[in-house]
């Protein structure tokens, strides 16, 4: 077992473990924190795969921006373990079983591949910022520009939905 494999296993255990913790912890704040751990682990994977740019972006965007936003909302709403709605046990079990079954089905199908395809670890220029930048601004200029529309609409959404203008009326049933 070389060091790469060891790191891989370590990161994997970390990400899976904290993911499980994320969905199982009672307090939403803990969940957010565990999720941040997952993201860090995944960033670790990226580094292992020599995708430096993504590793950084992942931490900045996800762990930094998005999760902070989450945390912020959770705090704002003052959610904690006591206010957390709990599903009944049986439904949880059904959920876990069906999710597990899905995993089982897909994994057992994927495992049928005979050929062993390797992943380039630690080396390679595909994930380097230069290559990515060239590619992004040469070939992917259109989606890059178009995603501005996405942000525009998200912005409008925040305005339309977030702006408080009327009090709630419980409209009669139609």
């Amino acid at each position, binding site marked *: 077992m070389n060091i790469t*494999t060891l790191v*891989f296993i370590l990161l*994997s255990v970390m990400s*899976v473990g904290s*993911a*499980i913790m*994320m*969905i199982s912890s009672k307090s939403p704040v803990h*969940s957010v924190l565990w999720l941040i751990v*997952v*993201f860090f682990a*995944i960033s670790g*994977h*990226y580094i292992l*795969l020599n*995708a430096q740019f*993504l590793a950084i*972006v*992942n931490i900045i*965007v*996800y762990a930094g921006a*998005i999760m902070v936003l*989450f945390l912020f*909302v*959770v705090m*704002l*709403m003052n*959610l904690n373990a006591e206010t957390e*709605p709990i*599903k009944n046990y049986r439904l*949880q079990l*059904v*959920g*876990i079983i069906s*999710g*597990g079954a*899905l995993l089982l089905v897909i994994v057992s199908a*994927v495992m049928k591949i005979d050929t*062993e*395809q*390797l*992943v*380039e670890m630690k080396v*390679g220029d*595909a*994930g380097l910022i230069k*290559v990515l930048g060239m590619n*992004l601004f040469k070939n992917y200029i259109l*989606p890059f520009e178009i*995603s501005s529309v*996405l*942000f525009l609409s*998200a*912005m409008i*959404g*925040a305005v339309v*939905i*977030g702006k*408080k203008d009327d009090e*709630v009326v419980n409209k009669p049933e139609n």
Partner: protein
Amino acid sequence: MDIKAYIILSLVLFTIGIIGVLVRRNAIIIFMCVELMLNAVNLLLVAFSKMHALSSAVKASPGYASDAQIFVFFIMVVAAAEVSVGLAIIVMMYRNVHTVDVNFLNRLKN
């Protein structure tokens, strides 16, 4: 590394996300689970891109191998946009009913 390891890893993460969606009732947590699913995808995409980087056909032009990573980049972009809208919706709901339980609002059924 064998690609299968990455596939399994991201599938496991993905499934944990799905299970999370299934077992939790807190809208924020569910949303976080979705984010987890997206991250699993990201990881898989990067792994695949590095796998393809090894194949002879792709080696000639490194741009191809980085396509997947650009895709991941776009996923993050979209996720960011989605989060802003999603949290706005959740906040709106919280403002109206003071809970984030997805089962609380249950007027629309049958």
